[in-house]
């Protein structure tokens, strides 16, 4: 045999085998999928990790909330949003002084099966009250550098002391989790008692928030640092596949407890067909297939091809989908696409690191940077007018929102901006140095936005350079206080102003939620008051006062409050816009036959 053939055939064989293996991987997926209803979706940023202890972004929460459960959840259909028991058997019993919450757990909740449960041969064990105490201690453990400590900080008796104790431990392994916390008591396996330091009216909302979900100690100890990639929860789904940066597949958790689809909702739910599955056991769909596509155009093409059941509308395709009257175009209606529009409880901004010596100490500069931004143009160019200009921190749907807020610097005024730049230079003592803006994305829209900022600031005499990185990398940079100015925003975790105002509470600085590291003792004092008040006109007045002070200081460039346009195909049933859209996949249903007819899938 010729020498070339001798060399060539093993290479050819290798290529063929590789191809078969890749093909087999696909066939294997198809074989797993046979007989299962699968919904296909996509996300446009990477998931950083699925450990509730350190989850802080909507993308990761949206995925992990299908695997982990909280004590409470929001009713899927009722508006205004209403809390109902989830892992809890009932709403908590609250003592007269409002400081003690006693929560009875359901008796039928099990963690999913996983090899970490060695004592039961991989069978998931029953959830107990102590699991919550353990999970929350992980947040308090300073060695974990959780960004979610702000939820519990100063709230629960003995918990701050526990956090202080963790600072004294030499290493993670030295932290003793059996050390008691006075305010966290597992009365028995199904009774959890929380004793507060001071009234905390929002506590039940935070017990519906994903970081408060229960994780099994066995999984944390078994997987160690890899636990964030290997979730073990009590939720309706379990993680089947996670190809980082590429795909996430979740499948029905066979040991999920009996939870039924709601049989009541809002007046229009029945007409909309959202009560057709009333009383059915959840989840209704067997499998969730999520593709990670960072670029918006491929995501759009997949949606239009029917490869995805649901998706957003990229800026460049908005006029393809939406007519000038803001309705769905006839072409898409014919394809069976449905448009959902809702106001998001979100505010977006470009935050300043207030510990930066330039930005933190130069108010005229921060004012100039707000004045230089034409928010109307921003909305038109990058958001297809899907939003409203933000003049304050709170979005319209949160009590305390003030459409008449006194915010003279969150308007577009280049002449005033130039004056402020001169003042800023005088305060700085010379020409201002270059400011670095970090964008949490590398797609074409992010780059165009970055250029827009450079030009907007150049117009008023400010020099800005932009660096682009993916979302998890930017979060890390912000967490470690090394970003000077960065793209950020906040989507409400709970329907309460406290959730936004805690972003400006001094002690919540990075790695906490106050990633602007903003400090104002007057604002802190107001926050401490409103945090312990029930909803009332007096509280709304204090929230507005606090918001006014923040807006006066301008620790960020406020941009917009978002209005969300979602498209889904008519074979995806029960979809209802939900601002707190975590763990909602279990309610959705699929008309697989209709999808098969339309797109052959």
């Amino acid at each position: 045999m010729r020498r070339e053939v001798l060399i060539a055939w093993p290479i050819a064989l290798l290529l063929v085998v590789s191809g078969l293996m890749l093909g087999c991987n696909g066939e294997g997926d198809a074989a797993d999928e046979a007989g299962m209803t699968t919904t296909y979706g996509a996300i446009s940023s990477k998931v950083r990790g699925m450990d509730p202890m350190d989850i802080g972004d909507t993308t990761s929460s949206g995925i992990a909330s299908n695997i982990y459960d909280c004590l409470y959840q929001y009713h899927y259909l009722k508006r205004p949003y209403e809390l109902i028991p989830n892992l809890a058997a009932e709403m908590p019993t609250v003592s007269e002084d409002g400081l003690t919450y006693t929560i009875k757990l359901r008796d039928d909740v099990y963690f999913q099966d996983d090899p970490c449960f060695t004592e039961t041969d991989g069978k998931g064990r029953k959830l107990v009250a102590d699991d919550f105490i353990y999970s929350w201690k992980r947040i308090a453990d300073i060695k974990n550098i959780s960004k979610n400590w702000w939820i519990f900080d100063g709230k629960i008796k003995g918990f701050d002391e526990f956090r202080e104790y963790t600072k004294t431990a030499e290493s993670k392994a030295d932290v003793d989790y059996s050390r008691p916390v006075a305010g966290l008591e597992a009365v028995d396996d199904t009774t959890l008692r929380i004793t507060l330091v001071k009234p905390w009216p929002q506590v039940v909302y935070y017990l519906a928030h994903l970081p408060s979900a229960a994780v099994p100690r066995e999984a944390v100890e078994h997987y160690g640092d890899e636990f964030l990639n290997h979730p073990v929860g009590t939720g309706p789904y379990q993680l089947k596949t996670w190809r980082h940066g590429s795909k996430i597949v979740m499948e029905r958790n066979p040991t999920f407890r009996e939870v039924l689809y709601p049989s009541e909702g809002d007046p229009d739910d029945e007409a909309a067909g959202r009560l057709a599955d009333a009383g059915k056991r959840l989840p209704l769909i067997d499998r969730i297939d999520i593709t990670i596509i960072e670029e918006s155009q491929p995501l759009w093409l997949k949606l239009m091809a029917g490869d995805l059941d649901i998706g957003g509308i990229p800026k460049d395709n908005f006029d393809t989908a939406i007519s000038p009257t803001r309705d769905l175009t006839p072409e898409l209606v014919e394809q069976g696409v449905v448009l959902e529009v809702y106001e998001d409880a979100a505010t977006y901004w470009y935050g300043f690191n207030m510990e930066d010596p330039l930005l933190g100490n130069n108010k005229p500069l921060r004012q100039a940077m707000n004045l230089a931004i034409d928010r109307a143009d921003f909305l038109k160019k990058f958001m297809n007018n899907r939003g409203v200009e933000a003049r304050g921190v709170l979005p319209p749907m949160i009590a305390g929102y003030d459409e008449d807020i006194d915010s003279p610097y969150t308007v577009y005024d280049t002449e005033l901006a130039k004056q402020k730049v001169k003042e800023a230079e005088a305060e700085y003592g010379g020409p201002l140095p270059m400011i670095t803006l970090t964008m949490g994305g590398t797609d074409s829209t992010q780059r165009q936005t970055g250029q827009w900022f450079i030009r907007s600031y150049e117009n008023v005499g400010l020099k800005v350079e932009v660096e682009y990185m993916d979302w998890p990398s930017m979060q890390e940079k912000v967490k470690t206080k090394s970003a000077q100015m960065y793209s950020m925003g906040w989507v409400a975790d709970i329907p309460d102003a406290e959730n936004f105002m805690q972003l400006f509470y001094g002690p919540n600085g990075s790695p906490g939620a106050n990633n602007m590291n903003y400090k104002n003792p007057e604002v802190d004092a107001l926050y401490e008051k409103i945090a312990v008040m029930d909803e009332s006109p007096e509280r709304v007045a204090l929230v507005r006062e606090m918001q006014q002070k923040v807006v006066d200081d301008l620790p960020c460039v406020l941009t917009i409050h978002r209005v969300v346009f979602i498209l889904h195909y008519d074979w995806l049933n029960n979809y209802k816009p939900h601002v707190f859209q975590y763990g909602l996949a279990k309610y959705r249903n699929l008309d697989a036959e209709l999808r098969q007819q339309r797109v052959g899938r």
Partner: protein
Amino acid sequence: MSDAVAVQHPMQVPSGWRPRLSAGWVGGVILLLIALPCFLTLPWALERFDLHRMDEGMQLLPPSWAEPMGTDLFGQSVMWRSLMGGAISLGIGGCAALISVFIGVTWGATAGYVGGRVDSAMMRVVDVLYGLPYILLVVLMNLALRPFVESGFKWAGLDESAASGMSGIVTLLVAIGGVSWLTMARVIRGQVLSLRSQPFMEAARAVGTGHMRTLIVHLLPNLIGPIVVYATLTVPQAILQESFLSFLGIGVQAPIPSWGNLASEGLPQLHKMATHAKSVEWWLLLFPCLLLGLTLMGLNFLGDALRNRLDPKRVKT
């Protein structure tokens, strides 16, 4: 003529040669029509356009007599940005090619001339570098060099913004040149190895000519042919590398234009076309890509023609 004479006098024109229209001429003409305007209009482009301005009301206009290549998202003229981008892309490509020629010729000639273990060691370095992914090398060199270059520009008196922009361009061309010399080194080494045993080299050694003088006076003139050929072929390669890196967002950064980042800005239009979007700003993609494509084609035609004329192995007796 014999091959030996051809090697010694590579620039001698064969008898009976008549100029005719060939791919090389076409390439040369295309290059002149594109490259010349890019460089000649540079002063006006720099003077006339503030790269950071946003022209309200001029955004995304299609091509017209007033704006032959239309305008972009920020109301900037695509024509002026393409011309300036061309000057930058061609400039980076040309300078990077010069750097690669300098390094490649020096490395290859030294290795071939010295021979022995030195030659082996030097060529092993080339082999190792060949195996490394060039983009990674370019990015690493860019990251390592940029702070120093930026400091240098600031020290020279440029403001921060200009220093940042210039340092990005300079470090990119140094990085591209720094990884593009490998083929040149191999070719030159091969040429030197074959020339080393020629009678004129023996004569030079016999009269006691020093090594440097031998290299520069006797060897280098005989290497001009291959140098010109490969330099001409390195230029489009360098331009393409710069365009590719800028397209990815790690080369020349907007708002400083280059053909690569202009094409990147226009790329969403391709998807809009594929999705039958109602408004497609096709000019954002077409013109930068057309200019880049024609320039690369012209350079390759020219390089091929020069190789046919000057490559000693191709000259017929």
